[in-house]
């Protein structure tokens, strides 16, 4: 018999809470039916808020539970806070849309809650199997919400496309994991790290090569999840086809969680192979920045444009990872936090784009917005300038930290390409501002846009505009989180 002692569950308290509450909410929904959607959405937001407090109140010291499969540390706290904020804000933002656009079914908030739970599990994964379970829980929920408007052809197409390609990437992840397990004999991150450490030295031994092949597959699968080039092809179609609140969710929370997984895997078990994976990351980073900058230029649909822009942003964040220094990782984390705020704000603007009860998504529809709806125009202009990286807006600081880290590491080429592609990217961001401020006005958008959207717009706008005044909490959190990987 195996001696069994109950593990110390306290470090997994937010996850256990979310898991339990999501089941309760599902039951409530089943019994009350679709009229409970509104209440369930608010309850989900409250649950995420409670989980947020639990995460913040948790200990910053590294602690593992569930036999070392689940880890809680300063990095996981930082990332979980981002994910929970992103998920809760998108739920609030989407309420009006869900009510109007025939998506009023109680499963929606519950599925978002399940996806969020999966993301938290991913961030805290300390084992290859735990990683896979968390990732699948998240992905499966996302496939479903992408296809949530089942009567819309585009939404179904988005869901199906995302599902097929996502299944392919999961296959790659599993294949890579099985290689790593086969050549090291472990699935736990600490054990893999020590196995690589002991087997190191000889870079050409079959063991190292085997682990490396596995690592390449894992990196490819994770690159798919963050939609980095060359695994980005799903992103524009899915972003365009999925219902807008779902797109907003995709652009915020899962991206942050997948990036957290990227950092956790590469800097945890495979930290000693930095010289090997660094080349891949540099390539992914450059390719994403270039494609994000050039492919977005010709886009007419704003959701598609944001999809390409998000590919570019992931490229910039990767610059920090490529540097592989504590400063670089700190840069990545700050970048993710700022990107999430900007992207939430942008999607709040897109959700406000309704004309006579119909959603419109063309960039031309924004023409003359400064005359017809100056507040939204101003907010969108702030977000676009920030995404372009114009000081003193938040987006500038995000880019500043990652490029500085790259320069300190002597990666001048990477930094120069980054700055050049930012300049190209600025063209299409500022084109939106031009359309809003200098083109002839078309019909006004529907007013009022609703209290939820206004609040989100105001909050994200203020953070983007005045980030430089008080950046300390984000900087310190990122600093502590990054320091974890460099003991």
């Amino acid at each position, binding site marked *: 018999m*195996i001696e069994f002692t109950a593990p110390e569950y306290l470090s997994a308290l937010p996850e256990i809470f979310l898991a339990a509450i999501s089941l309760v909410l599902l039951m409530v929904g089943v019994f009350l039916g679709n009229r409970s959607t509104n209440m369930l959405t608010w309850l989900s937001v409250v649950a995420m808020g409670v989980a947020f407090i639990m995460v913040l109140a948790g200990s910053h010291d590294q602690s593992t539970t*569930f036999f070392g499969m689940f880890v809680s540390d300063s990095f996981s706290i930082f990332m979980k806070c981002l994910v929970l904020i992103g998920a809760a804000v998108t739920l609030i933002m989407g309420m009006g849309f869900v009510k109007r656009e025939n998506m009023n079914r109680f499963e929606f908030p519950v599925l978002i809650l399940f996806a969020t739970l999966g993301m938290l*599990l991913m961030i805290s994964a300390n084992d290859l199997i735990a990683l896979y379970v968390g990732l699948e829980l998240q992905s499966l*929920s996302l496939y*479903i919400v992408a296809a949530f408007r*089942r009567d819309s052809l585009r939404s179904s197409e988005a869901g199906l496309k995302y599902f097929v390609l996502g299944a392919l990437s999961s296959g790659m992840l599993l294949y890579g994991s099985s290689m790593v397990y086969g*050549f090291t004999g*472990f699935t736990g991150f600490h054990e893999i790290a020590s196995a690589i450490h002991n087997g190191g030295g000889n870079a050409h031994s079959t063991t190292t090569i085997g682990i490396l092949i596995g690592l390449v597959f894992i990196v490819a699968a994770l690159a798919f999840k963050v939609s980095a080039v060359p695994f980005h092809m799903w992103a524009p179609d899915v972003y365009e086809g999925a219902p807008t609140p779902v797109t907003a969710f995709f652009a915020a929370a899962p991206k942050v969680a997948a990036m957290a997984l990227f950092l956790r895997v590469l800097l945890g078990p495979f930290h000693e192979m930095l010289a090997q994976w660094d080349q891949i990351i540099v390539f992914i980073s450059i390719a994403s920045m270039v494609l994000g900058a050039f492919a977005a230029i010709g886009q007419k649909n704003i959701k598609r444009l944001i999809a390409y822009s998000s590919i570019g942003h992931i490229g910039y964040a990767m610059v920090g990872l490529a540097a592989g220094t504590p400063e670089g990782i700190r840069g990545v984390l700050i970048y993710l936090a700022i990107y999430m705020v900007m992207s939430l704000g942008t999607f709040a603007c897109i959700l406000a784009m309704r004309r006579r009860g119909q959603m419109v998504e063309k960039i031309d529809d924004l023409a003359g917005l400064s005359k017809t709806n100056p507040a939204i125009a101003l907010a969108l202009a702030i977000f676009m300038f920030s995404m372009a990286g114009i000081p003193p807006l938040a987006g500038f600081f995000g880019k500043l930290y990652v490029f500085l880290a790259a320069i300190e590491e002597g990666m001048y080429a990477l930094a120069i390409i980054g700055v050049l592609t930012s300049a190209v990217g600025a063209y299409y961001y500022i084109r939106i501002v031009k359309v809003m401020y200098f083109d002839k006005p078309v019909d006004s958008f529907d007013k009022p846009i609703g209290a939820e959207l206004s609040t989100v717009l105001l909050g994200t706008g203020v953070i983007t505009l005045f980030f430089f005044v008080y950046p300390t909490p984000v900087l310190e959190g990122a600093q502590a989180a990054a320091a974890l990987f460099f003991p």
Partner: protein
Amino acid sequence: MIIETIVFYVLAVVTVASGVMVIASRNPVQSVLFLILAFFNSAGLFVLMGAEFLAMILVIVYVGAVAVLFLFVVMMLDINFSELRAGFLQYLPLGAIVGVILLAELILVFATGSIDIHVPEVVTVAMPPAAEVSNTKALGNILYTRYAYLFQGAGFILLVAMVGAIVLTHRRRVEVRRQKIAEQVARDPKAAVVLKDIKSGEEGTWKSD
């Protein structure tokens, strides 16, 4: 010992033979039935090797779920298999080339011995020792303790899959008449039966309410 050998050969021959029949038989329903036979015999082979848990899983999952699902698909959908098979020969050369290349690669890999996989010690040791506990017991011992976290996580994934299937496909049909048990029970003869006194020989004007 001799009995074991005989059983092995019987099971193995039936497995291979039914495997051949799966692809050879013209009737798709027969194909699936042969597939089920192959599964059962492989389960027997697993039992012979002492892997009783795998044998059970094979019967429950493959026979119980997958094969029956196949059977459903084959019987419910009207698929013309001979039409599907019509273009088969034209792809044969390409398939053969791919097969030969794969075979050659495998032979090369093993013949040159260039792969010298250093299998770590821990992987090769059965844990716990097979002589002490059975497979099923050993799995049960760790599945709900050491791997409880993954077990619960997998449970959540299955729940999401179920919710997803319902969300994406279930439609509430309005034209169906549903049975309302409460209403049926609440009905009494007074509300349901009307007695009309109709005199014989008279053409009654019967009118329902």
